[in-house]
């Protein structure tokens, strides 16, 4: 018998995602395709991750030129690369020990980059002060979030620690909470109202903690994942007031702030908090997260993210700092990606024109995608989609016929997993089932990425509608 039969109960308690089943099937299907097995499709369209590059979106030229120059400084000799690329690479390397991106950086990130990130935050928030000492660059925003959760979730307390999270919610976060021994306390977003966050629902969720756990934090995702809603200022103020009144630490996951498609504008929790003035602005404890993985850059693989801490107890911050110390330092290329994200080429810079063209192209593509996706889905029987105001995904609802639900039960699967599996087998599309994110009982959804080249989305929607129509017929 294995020495490791007994493992951490926290790890055991982490939900096994439905997605893992789909991932295994995909691997098999891809292998079959490689072997020449005939299928109704030539390749699998994988839209299960919020990963623009995987979907076919091109990296930004300026970003990749700077990275290349930092990696191999010989490229800065001569005029091959635009002068602003060379200058930026020079500046970045000047901040690296030994003039190499291969050395460790200070805990929390290269100081010059942290400084520039803080200036970005301040500019974004209309001048609200941002202190570099409160900013930690990290190996992706999820890593930073897990570290902060680590401090919040007290596994030794008599009461388990609860964290209020939206339903639906990005599954990695709920897994992190479970993995630390915390309790996920869902508050349901209102689908009929465009996935709106309603304060009454926050109250209900909090009530449900009584006798079960001690709630310490409230986690919000804005713009949302998987549901692509953008929160209104009014709603954010309500959330802040609620957090203050109920003494909850606010965790604001804002990684999709660069992905906004509709009329609503993104405003950060930090800014709203600041504008609400004292006492709230001086007391509500907030951690906000951002990343280079989303937006136009889409540099998920570089692992660049950061957390900004607001109104934290200085004594607690010292411990947080030590915690980050034990992680050594975040990957330098990821840090550079953050620098480029927060300080892109400006009008007048040699690289500006191309940068503008590339980002505009991505923006207009995604706006088109969002429109088309919603149109197509809403035109199909048994399929409906709320407006995608921001984020990386569409999260339509599938109104599954009773027969399909029955079939799924017999197969020992969640109904939306069953749907996704069929979608994969018959149409070669890998999307993820709503069960992995949390949804109102009796409702079913799928999530798929819309940060794709327009023609890929077109292909995806074609396959999806053909499949869906057939599926509905088969199970009517």
């Amino acid at each position, binding site marked *: 018998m294995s*020495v490791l039969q007994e493992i951490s*109960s926290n*790890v055991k308690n982490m939900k096994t995602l439905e997605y893992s089943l789909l991932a295994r099937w995909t691997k098999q299907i891809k292998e079959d395709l490689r072997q020449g097995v005939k299928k109704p499709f030539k390749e699998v369209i994988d839209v299960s991750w919020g990963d623009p590059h*995987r979907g076919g979106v091109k990296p930004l030229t300026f970003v990749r030129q700077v990275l290349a120059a930092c990696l191999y400084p010989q490229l800065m000799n001569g005029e091959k690369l635009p002068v602003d690329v060379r200058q930026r690479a020079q500046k970045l390397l000047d901040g690296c020990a030994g003039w190499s991106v291969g*050395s460790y950086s200070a805990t929390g990130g290269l100081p010059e980059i942290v400084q520039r990130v803080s200036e970005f935050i301040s500019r974004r928030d209309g001048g609200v002060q941002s202190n570099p000492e409160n900013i930690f660059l990290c190996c992706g925003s999820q890593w930073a979030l*897990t570290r902060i959760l680590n401090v919040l979730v007290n596994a030794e307390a*008599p009461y388990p620690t609860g964290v209020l999270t939206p339903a639906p919610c990005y599954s990695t976060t709920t897994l992190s909470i479970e993995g630390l021994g915390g309790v996920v306390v869902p508050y349901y977003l209102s689908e009929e109202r465009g996935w709106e966050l309603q304060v009454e629902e926050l109250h209900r969720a909090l009530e449900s903690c009584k006798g*079960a756990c001690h709630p310490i934090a409230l986690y919000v995702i804005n713009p949302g994942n998987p549901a692509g809603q953008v929160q209104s200022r009014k709603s954010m103020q309500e959330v802040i007031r609620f957090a203050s009144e109920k003494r909850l630490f606010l965790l604001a996951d804002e990684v999709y702030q660069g992905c906004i498609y509709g009329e609503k504008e993104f405003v950060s929790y930090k800014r709203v908090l600041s504008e609400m003035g004292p006492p709230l602005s001086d007391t509500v404890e907030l951690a906000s997260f951002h990343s280079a993985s989303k937006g136009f850059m889409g540099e998920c693989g570089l692992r660049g993210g950061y957390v900004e801490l607001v109104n934290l107890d200085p004594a607690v911050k010292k411990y947080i700092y030590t915690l980050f110390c034990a992680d050594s330092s975040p990957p330098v290329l990821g840090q550079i990606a953050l620098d480029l994200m927060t300080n892109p080429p400006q009008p007048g810079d040699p690289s500006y024109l191309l940068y503008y063209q590339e980002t505009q192209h991505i923006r207009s593509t995604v706006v088109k995608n969002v429109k088309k996706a919603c149109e197509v889905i809403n035109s199909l029987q048994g399929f409906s989609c709320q407006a995608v105001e921001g984020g990386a995904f569409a999260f339509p609802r599938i109104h599954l016929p009773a027969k399909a639900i029955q079939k799924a039960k017999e197969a020992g699967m969640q109904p939306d997993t069953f749907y996704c599996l069929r979608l994969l087998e018959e149409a070669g599309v890998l999307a993820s089932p709503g069960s992995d994110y949390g949804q109102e009982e009796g409702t079913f959804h799928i999530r798929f990425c819309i940060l794709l080249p327009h023609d890929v989305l077109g292909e995806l929607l074609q396959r999806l509608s053909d499949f869906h129509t057939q599926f509905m017929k088969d199970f009517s």
Partner: protein
Amino acid sequence: MNHGTSLLWKQRALSSLSATRRGLPKEKMSENGMSRGKVLTIDNMNPTVKKVEYAVRGPIVQRAVELERELSEGMKKPFAEVIKANIGDAHAMGQQPITFFRQVLALCSYPELLSDSIFPEDAKNRARRILNSCGGNSMGAYSASQGIESVRQDVALYIERRDGGVPCDPDNIYLTTGASDGIVTMLKLLVCGEGAARAGVMISIPQYPLYSAALAELGAVQINYYLNEEKCWSLDISELQRALNEARRYCNPRALCIINPGNPTGQVQSRQCIEDVIRFAARERLFLMADEVYQDNVYAEGCQFHSFKKVLFEMGPEYSETVELASFHSTSKCYMGECGFRGGYMEIINMDEEVKAQLTKLLSVRLCPPVPGQALMDLVVNPPQPGEPSYERFISERTATLSALAEKAKLTEQVLNTVDGIRCNPVQGAMYSFPRIAIPEKAIKEATENGQQPDMFYCMKMLEETGICLVPGSGFGQKDGTYHFRMTILPPRDKLKILLNKVQEFHQRFTQQYS
């Protein structure tokens, strides 16, 4: 609340292990009865986080950074620069990256360069191969949690070559964010149990403080086994046994960690020792964690790196089919020194399939390791071959780096051993010296009065007087009543010589001052 939950509460309440059990957070009341005070305080935060220390980036380094700032602002100091000999960061100390690696990575970042004639064909081919295995042909796409499949395959082939043909299954390879990620993940997996059944993990004293930090954070029991300083930091099985027997009284020992070549001590374990450790782990049913990040950093004559995996398999099926082992490697050390990439892998042997599934879940939470680090690892395990355009240059760069390190290891040992009151074991491998220092009674007394460890007191003084930043031995663990410091051998040879002389002078002054 169901019965199960209430039972859980009772168990937690009765847990005798934690001295920092906390109830509901205290509400601080102000005069008018309104509750004030922070939501997250040092009283209600996760208590295990408060126990985390990491000396390599600890208070002495923070002071060093302060001094650097003061120097740059024109403040007068008894030294012209601060030298950070505290951290195993080769590039920071002037070591050059391997050209081939950087060329391929640049090509991967900006594939337009594939048409540029300044890059050799073999670098271009590698870049194409790596890009083909990335989603959307971009290093910016997420990879699978376990790491890019073709990279894992290459790692498996490397391990097979390194270990004289012992088979390696790519499914047992997990790419990680530096070796630290793998180590911490394994510890997270196996730490469980309450009270006297709480998981215990054996770690060498002295050790690399990532281990003690992780164990503290996880609330695991740290079981210390002492390396033998008199015998060149060798590992005695009798000491392992002693530590284990004692630990069994208050915890459930589950794993044994060993760092080979050692950090901070630099010893390279003999093959016999490795066999003995394997037998011990088998007999006592311990999960073996072999930290082998310094596997190319072996300098002393008569010393050789033997991988735990190889030795395990050469011991025959009685061991190779039963002992559970995880071995770790990284792109941060050896001749690459690419710390900033956070590249690493772990190989897991004989792990239960069900446990592997749990491991996969745990790894998914951090999404995937940085893709450039994965690409770099691919190059490390699959460097230029004889006949390829980049081969000559690669070999000469690698040789130059490793022989420079060997020379500096020897130099360090030599110079430090000329100092009265400093005794330095041979630096057989890795990147550090860990000499023992004699600290006069008077100094110990003053340190204690200041609430400082004597070797911290010593190192702080050295920093203030010479600008040299070292890490005190207390940050790594040491036998009671002994004092050490860890100093890297990384600065360029001439600078290292100056450093060593300054250390010598400081030690003599210090000893004089406190005599």
